Structures are given as structure tokens and as C-alpha cells.
């Protein structure tokens, strides 16, 4: 049986076209209250090609959220270089839409008004029709006038995804977007996310600690080591798309998950995966 998983490529991927995102020699040091310095990231390099779905997995505290916050422009103080389409990236950018672990909706705004928030900040006119389309795309047609307090956790996160897409960014950053949801909702949302990513033709960079989730969704999975965070391995997932939940039963899926788990655990124990964990 041929291996579907390509053997690990060198730590820096070099996609064919110029990458959408190019990160080189990225390091980040946090000062602590005691005046010590904690190395959060160490010499990270990664490329993300246009249209690619890339996941970053790693143990808690390895600095994966720091990588995302740097890409989102929320952390400006770092060493190394981050380029978007070849241009140096510093500070927030219209090319990027972010979905955080919490939906972070404004509870005083309706679902539609929450999706329109980026239009208000960026002073874009006439976005109502697009906002309604996006709500329909994430499966919330008819919920435009609901307040966040009237929506379930999964629905709120769908609104957050629609909001992140409103200003038509090239790159969608997802920071454990379904981490706060229960396992069953999470499985459903992952299937939805795969559909939304395909439908919107966005480049997606997903941070997660769920290996199965990363394998299920991604074209490529980057594996990070504990602090100081480094990218230790890069694994291309060649399972055919679109993928359904039944892929969990696929031998190749299970093999990939086990392999990544071993990478994270050292030689540690591997358990059979579900999508959620």
C-alpha cells in the first residue's frame, strides 16, 4: 500500500507560486514580571500559499497563539520577518480576517450588525447584502435580527466566521475557533468549516491542539514543539477533498493522526482519534 502521506518535507515548504504569507526567522521573547525573559518562539519559518489550508498543532503554551497574533498584527514587537504577498507585514492588515476561540460578538448588536462591524471600522459602504449572503453561507439565513444572547455557541462562532470574511480578506486566521464547543457541535462545525473554506476560496491558517481536527481540515499540518516554540515537522495531508466525517474510519487518517501524536509526545502513547480530540 502506497503511503498517502508524503514523507516530511524540509522544515520550510516552498510552494510553487510566491507564497501569500512568508515567515522567516521569527522569534519572540516575553519579559516576565521578575525581569526574566521567556523565549516564546524560536526561529520559526513557514510559508502559506494562496488557497491553502494550513494548520499549526502543538501542546498548550507552545506559542502557537503568539504566531497567530503576530500574523493578525496584534503583536508588533518580534524578531524576524513576516511578509504578506512579499510586503513586510506590520500591524493589522485588511488582508487578514481573524476568528478567535471565543466568538467575541458584541452582545448589543444583532447577528447582522455584528457581521457588519468590520464595514463600520473600515468605513466600507453598502455591505448589507454581502453580510446577509455571508450569514446564509455559514447557515444562519433568517437569524439576521437575533442577538448573540439568543444564539447557541456554535451559531455565535458561525457569526464570527462571517464577520471575519466581510471585508474579503485574503487570509483567514482561526485560533482554536471551536475549542469552547462540545465535541459533537465541534465535529459538525469542522465539516462546515471545510465547506466554508472551499466555498469562499480563502487561504486558511488554523491553530488547534486537536490533531484530528487539523488532519481532517488541512492540506498541510505544521507541528510545533513545546516552549520555545519551533516547527519540528511538516506533514502534507493528501487525503482527497471534500472529506466527510466518515474519513475518521479511514486507515490513512488514523495513521496520520497517530504519527503526529507520536511527534508531539516523543514516543508517547497514541490513542485512537475522534475528530474532536
Amino acid at each position, binding site marked *: 500500500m502506497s503511503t498517502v502521506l508524503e514523507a516530511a518535507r524540509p522544515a520550510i515548504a516552498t510552494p510553487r507560486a510566491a507564497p501569500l504569507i512568508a515567515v522567516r526567522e521569527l522569534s519572540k521573547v516575553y519579559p516576565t514580571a521578575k525581569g526574566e525573559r521567556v523565549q516564546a518562539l524560536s526561529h520559526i519559518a513557514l510559508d502559506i500559499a494562496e488557497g491553502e489550508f494550513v494548520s499549526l498543532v502543538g501542546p498548550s503554551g507552545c506559542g502557537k497563539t503568539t504566531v497567530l497574533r503576530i500574523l493578525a498584527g*496584534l503583536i508588533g514587537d518580534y524578531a524576524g520577518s513576516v511578509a504578506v504577498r512579499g510586503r513586510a507585514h506590520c500591524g493589522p492588515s485588511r488582508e*487578514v480576517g481573524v476568528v478567535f476561540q471565543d466568538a*467575541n460578538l458584541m452582545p*448589543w448588536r444583532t447577528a447582522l450588525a455584528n457581521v457588519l*462591524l*468590520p464595514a463600520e*471600522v*473600515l468605513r466600507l459602504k453598502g455591505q448589507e447584502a454581502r453580510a446577509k449572503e455571508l450569514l446564509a453561507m455559514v447557515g444562519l439565513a433568517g437569524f439576521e435580527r437575533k*442577538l448573540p444572547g439568543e444564539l447557541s455557541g456554535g451559531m455565535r462562532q458561525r457569526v464570527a466566521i462571517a464577520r471575519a470574511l466581510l471585508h474579503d480578506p485574503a487570509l483567514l486566521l482561526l485560533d482554536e475557533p471551536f475549542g469552547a464547543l462540545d465535541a459533537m457541535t465541534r465535529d459538525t462545525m469542522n465539516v462546515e468549516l471545510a465547506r466554508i473554506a472551499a466555498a469562499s476560496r480563502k487561504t486558511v491558517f488554523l491553530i488547534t491542539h486537536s490533531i484530528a481536527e487539523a488532519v481532517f481540515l488541512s492540506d498541510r499540518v505544521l507541528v510545533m514543539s513545546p516552549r520555545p516554540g519551533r516547527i519540528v515537522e511538516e506533514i502534507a495531508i493528501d487525503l482527497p477533498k471534500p472529506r466527510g466525517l466518515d474519513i475518521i474510519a479511514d486507515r490513512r487518517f488514523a495513521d496520520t493522526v497517530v504519527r503526529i501524536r507520536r511527534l508531539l509526545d516523543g514516543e508517547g502513547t497514541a490513542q485512537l482519534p475522534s475528530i474532536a480530540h
Partner: protein
Amino acid sequence: MWHSCARSRSAAGAQRESAALLHAARHAFALAWPPMLFGAALLYAWTQASARGWVDELILPPPGEILQQLSLGLSSGVLLPHLGVTLLQALLGFVIAVAAGIGVGAVIASSPLVERCFNPFLIAFEAMPKIAMAPLVIVWFGYGIWSKVVLAAVIAFFPILVSTILGLRASEPGRLDVLRALGASRAQEFRLVRLPGALPFIFSGINVAVVFVLLGSIVGEFVGAKQGLGTLILIANENLETARTFSILAILALLGMLLHFGVGALRQRLLFWAEPRTGSPPA
């Protein structure tokens, strides 16, 4: 056939409606009877105590006399202008206190350094009983309505200021991240996230302030004024017309409740999203 069918349907609807109405009335009665019964018992005891001479009329006049004074004051047109002045002072003081409290609160909460500069002085000023400033405020602003407006505003300012600072400081970092990732300005952050998020806090300050403005208005009138319910109380007291004093106190209680309900209505309009979801009475 169709006709009778439609009629019977509407009859069924009317029946349902009247059943719902009956249910609502029962619910209202169930809520209302304990305080009504208690009130009636209290009133009876009070009337008896006066009628049998257990208490001096100068100390506690009978309810009937107070009611008489109230209707006399209202029908003769003596009370209304004074009530208007006291209410106007309170309302103006309230508006100024809300605007100043939120404005200064926003400035103080804008940076930790500013907050540290202001903090000790705020604590000292807050600890001082503001009512003690009443004579001074009269000297500064005269016997007209503005001295009372200022006193009411000064007293009501602090609860709003403190709750504004607390509310702005409690801004959820996640919501701010959403705006920052879009490159929002500080003004946008304030308008779209911080201020609306602080409103539940601010309203707890406003609830206190609305009681304070009436207090400031009356105390200002005690210290020196030409008009207002406070001056009427002083006059009635000097003439030992206790029933009259009581009738004005009753008006003040109503006024306070009116202001309180006004704030409640405003709160419902602005904070529809933060209201605890209480079940409406079964209908």
C-alpha cells in the same frame, strides 16, 4: 357554512383571549394582595392611633388630614410651581452629572497614568460628604435654581464617575482584539466596544444618582432658596403644620419613584441585550 365556521372560530378566539385576560388578572392579584393588605392594616392602625389620641397630632397627623392638605395644595395651585422648580433642578443636575460623570470617567480610564494621578484626589473628594458644600454652593451660585442644580450634579456625579471607570476598565480584551485586528482607532474602540460594554456598570451608578439629585435639590432649598418643595417644607415646619409637611413628603416620594421608573425605562431601551431573561407572566 363558511360564515358560521368563521364566526365560531372568532368566538373561540375571543374565549381564549378572555381566558388569558382572566389569568393575567389573577396573576396581578396574587402579586398585589399582600402589600395591599399590609398597607390597609397600617392605615387602619394609624387612623385609630390618631382618633384615640395615642399620638399627638403635631407629631403624627391622621392620614385623612394629610390627604386633605395634599388635595388642597394641589387644587389651590400652590404646590405645582414649587414641584416644577424642584423637579427641574433635579433633572438638570441629573443631565449634567451623567454627561460629566461619563466624560471625566472616559478621560480617567483612558490611561493608567492619568488614573493614578487622579485617584487619591477622587478618593478624598468622594469621602467628603458633598452636602456639606451646600452653603458654599449657595454663595457661589446664588439663591436661584442654579445653586441647586450644581449641588444635585456634584452629589450625583461621583456614583456615575466611579461606575463609568469600573465599566470601562472591565472592557473584554477579546472584543477589543476584534477591533484591533481590523486596525480600529481608539475613538472607534471607545464607541463600538468600550462604552456600550460599560453601560450596565454606568446604569448601576445612574440608579444611585437619580436618588441623589432629588436629595441635592431639596438640601439646596433648605440652605437658601426662593422656591421649591424644600422651602415649602421649611415654612410648614415653622408654622407647625405637620400635616402639610407630610403631604409634601408624600409628593417627594412619588417624584422619586417617578424618576426611578424613568431610569428603568431608559435602561430597558439601552440595555435590552443585558437584561436578565425573566420569564414573562404566563399568558
